[in-house]
């Protein structure tokens, strides 16, 4: 089966191979494990980019393959980040607190330790009590399970409600956006127990590993992200190949038809929605320790729309397209907003790219949607000479199903 799977999808091996080469290159170039021509902060940027590629994969699965334009996947990404962030913050604070308590005359009682940690973490929101959601924060395995469980459960409940009532298309998008908005507004409150708009910080410091330099930690996370991306790619590729892939693409193109074939469309949608939410959660759990801080702003609806932008620019409906899009746009975005792009003096006005980058991104996005709906992935087709056979009419868009009649009849 392995043989046939890879034989049928040669792009998987190419992708994994390129990813491995890239990982090797970064490892060799990093400060901790190689010659040091790639700075630690850039290794972190690359690691984060890989995580964004992973969530883009999830987005492609849910949008490009089953046709749900979810504007809520960054919420799952953020939740994953929060879950791992809770453990990181708890454990790290515990280290610090224990250090100071151990110097006291009496050994601390468990209550004292807990109160001290609570005071450290929640002092900023005027409390020293642990909210109920932190019940498992002391345990890495439990929080790791939550990384998967919390986004998965949220997706399950929301998806069940939404798909059950047959909300589709734009309405579903708006509903997912509303969910994200509700979640981020909820997290903005101090009462939510996750430090309100302060969010969780100091996540780049791994507990018990103070001796390990950030340069090494960054490369560890880079490896983990690369591994997760590779596994995620394999998983997604496996899901979309075969009959399951046929069915979900069928749902994208004409869900009513699939329903009349006896497939419970809602079940498939729910399955994919939850699966991608879990992938997004894992991506978030890898991303935020590299970013160092997470706050509710990260989960604002706009972040999820950017995610859709990446996938669209990369070319939806093909997995490598999503990865390309996420990597390309986020790296270019880092480049522009980092102030590394020279300003353009126009005489009367100087175009400073830090200010104008979003305008450029917005407009280029319009252009891509209008003129290159296949995105960057379309270029791959061109290069491979694998142009779509002339079927008259516009290319197949996932949103409206198969070709419209009048286009096909031309």
């Amino acid at each position, binding site marked *: 089966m392995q043989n046939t799977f890879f034989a049928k999808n040669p792009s998987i091996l190419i992708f994994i191979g390129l990813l491995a080469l890239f990982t090797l290159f970064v490892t060799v170039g990093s400060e901790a494990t190689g010659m040091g021509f790639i700075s630690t902060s850039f290794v972190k940027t690359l690691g984060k980019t890989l995580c964004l590629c992973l969530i883009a994969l999830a987005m492609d699965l849910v949008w490009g393959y089953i046709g749900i334009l979810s504007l809520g996947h960054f919420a799952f990404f953020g939740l994953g980040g929060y879950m791992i962030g809770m453990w990181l913050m708890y454990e790290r604070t515990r280290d610090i607190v224990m250090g100071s308590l151990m110097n006291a005359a009496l050994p601390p009682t468990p209550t004292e330790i807990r109160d001290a940690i609570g005071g450290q973490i929640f002092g900023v929101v005027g409390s020293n009590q642990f909210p109920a959601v932190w019940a498992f924060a002391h345990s890495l395995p439990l929080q790791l399970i939550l990384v998967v469980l919390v986004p998965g459960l949220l997706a399950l409940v929301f998806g069940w409600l939404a798909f059950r*009532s047959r909300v589709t298309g734009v309405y579903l998008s708006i509903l997912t*956006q509303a969910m994200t908005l509700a979640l981020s507004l909820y997290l903005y409150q101090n009462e939510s127990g996750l430090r309100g708009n302060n969010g969780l910080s100091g996540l780049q410091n791994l507990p018990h590993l103070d001796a390990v330099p950030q340069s090494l930690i960054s490369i560890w996370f880079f490896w983990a992200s690369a591994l997760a991306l590779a596994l995620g790619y394999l998983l997604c590729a496996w899901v979309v190949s075969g009959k399951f892939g046929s069915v979900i693409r069928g749902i994208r193109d004409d869900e009513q038809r699939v329903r009349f074939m006896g497939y419970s469309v809602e079940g498939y949608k729910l399955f994919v929605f939850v699966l991608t939410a879990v992938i997004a959660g894992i991506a978030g759990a890898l991303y935020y320790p590299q970013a160092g801080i997470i706050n509710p702003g990260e989960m604002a*609806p706009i972040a999820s729309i950017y995610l859709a932008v990446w996938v669209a620019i990369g070319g939806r409906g093909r997995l490598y397209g999503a990865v390309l899009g996420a990597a390309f746009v986020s790296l270019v975005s880092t480049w522009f907003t980092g102030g590394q792009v020279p300003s353009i003096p126009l005489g009367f006005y100087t175009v400073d790219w830090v200010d104008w980058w979003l305008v450029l991104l*917005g407009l280029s996005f319009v252009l891509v949607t209008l003129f290159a709906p296949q995105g960057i992935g379309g270029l791959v087709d061109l290069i491979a000479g694998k142009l779509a056979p002339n079927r008259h009419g516009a290319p197949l868009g996932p949103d409206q199903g198969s070709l419209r009649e009048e286009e096909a009849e031309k």
Partner: protein
Amino acid sequence: MIFKTSGRLAALLCALALAHGTAALAQDGAPTQTETPPQASEAPGEAPGATASAAMPALSPIQSLLQANRDLIEAASRRTIQPAIDALATSGLPQAQSVLEKWQAREMWQRDSDGLFFYAEEVDRDTLRIFDFSTGEPLGDMPEDDFTQLKPNSGIRGLMGAALVSFQLNSDDPAVRGAALAGIERDGDASHLAPLRSVLDKDMDAANRARAERLERLLTVRFGESDAERVEAIGYFNGDLGVDARAALNPLVATTLRVGTTLPEGGNVARTLKVGSDALPRLEAYALLVDNDLAPPLLTVADNRAALEANIVDGQVGGIAVADLDSDETRARAYAALAAEGTVPLAATPDEIDTILDGFTFYETFAEPSALVTDAASDALTGIGTKVGFNQFLDLSLDGLSLASIYFLAAIGLAITFGVMGVINMAHGEFIMMGAYTGYVVQQIIPDYTLSLIVAIPAAFAVTFAAGVAMERLIIRWLYNRPLETLLSTFGVSIALQQLAKNIFGTQARPLTSPSWLDGSFQLNDVVGISYIRIAIFVLALIFLGIFLFIMKKTRLGLETRAVTQNPRMAASMGINPDRVNMLTFGLGSGIAGIAGVAIGLYAKVTSELGADYIVQSFMTVVVGGVGNIWGTLLGATMIGFLQKGIEWFNPANTLAAQTYMIIFIIIFIQFRPRGIIALKGRAAGD
């Protein structure tokens, strides 16, 4: 008359005498007091030289009066001063009021040499500018050492205040009366009651009479002599919405938590409390005992820790190794051991609390001793509470209505572009923002706020209409029937426009000031009120509804729009140019968004994120209401507005939570009505 003249003469003489220095003054002086007793002394009858000034010639009547009461004034005490004040108040002298005022304000001075009273301003530390009471004219600057300031204490000042109030209330000038009443309203006390009552018998203008009657009752509630009178006054306020009524009644039912072994006899006990109930948790009850020295303080963790740390001997505390003291249980044992040695004081342990608490009764007493009054007050407050609750509901409804009209305004453009045309325009919020910024720019050019508003509305419409037409021509028309791609590309426009606005106008909020006639608010009573700007927005929303209905139902454009959206091919074959219609309709929807932007800008600050704040709610409004139906949008806006206000009412401190719960509610609502409140049924609904 003669007195008056002579008074003036005396003043003149004084003035002349001043020119010769202070030494001259001493000549005409009566025996002076060498030692002035501390003013405001409570001990009566201490005043020496009480009979001194009986027969001063050529004194003005007011000075004579003051001199006649000199003993009382000098040795003023709350208990004894009343006759002097009464004498002044009933003298009928025109200066009596001013004397009382100056006296009350501690501006009355007595000359040590002759005991005459003046009022004075302090010029500097050592110098006074002396004025004569009878004429009000300055007599010149004199050294302070020659005078003694009269410093009435607060009790005396209160008595004077009452007398003054009486003066003012009896004034013929309604404004003065009004001011007196306002003073009592602000800070009434028992002494005001008598003058108020006396003035009620007299003729008065209706407005002031009503105020006076109300005040009389309020004061009776607080200071009335008999319970019956107070209860009757309380009865008047049943169902009264005034803040003053509640302010008068609430202290009556205020309670204090007390503790004792038994309930007190005769005290006005509100209720007894059970320890461990919600109203009185165990630890609070115990803390009360400790505060009243009825029980030893509870050993806190920190105290325990400090005590143990202070008693570490050879790595042990009370026979327990320090290393073992890492649990509350061992620490308690160690402390008990120390306490047994007598090293530390005994402290209550959690187990003992209950036994100690059992011995006491906890109860709340009213500060007001009369049970009749407190009962009446709490009845009245219950009645008021119901009515206030009803009015708050009314107020909340008005808030909800105005929020609904804001959502409606924000959504009505969408109802056209999204509801009628089916085009999902994520940049709709940015059109709202453009409208608001247009209003801001117009205001920079035209400083008159009213005029600029009149100009801004059509200008905003024009700008956003043009933007909408441009967007339709350049982007949207290529993407009809591909809603998700429309969503994404218009989102691209949205982020570009937002950033553009940031680049042009900066990130800080720009003010869009409303004309002064829109300031202030319409106040129905103390509870219900609504600002004019919200009324204006509501009216604007109604106007828009009218315009929308008119355009869609009565105009050629509306007819063509409906035709094109229902069946473009058929419409085209009937000679309608769908391109043109789509363009105009989209422009219209965008233009309305622009006008909404001006309205919202008046109400909120204009920032580049203004539109983004409203976009999700706007889409929700349209979706909840039912796509393609303006009445649905209206209902949707109403529902969301009222809902949000309703949720905020449950948790007023947290508007974020209100929004969160509202969105969750909408998600659940969509479960039951996936096509909105007013759903298109049948085949027209499509898939």
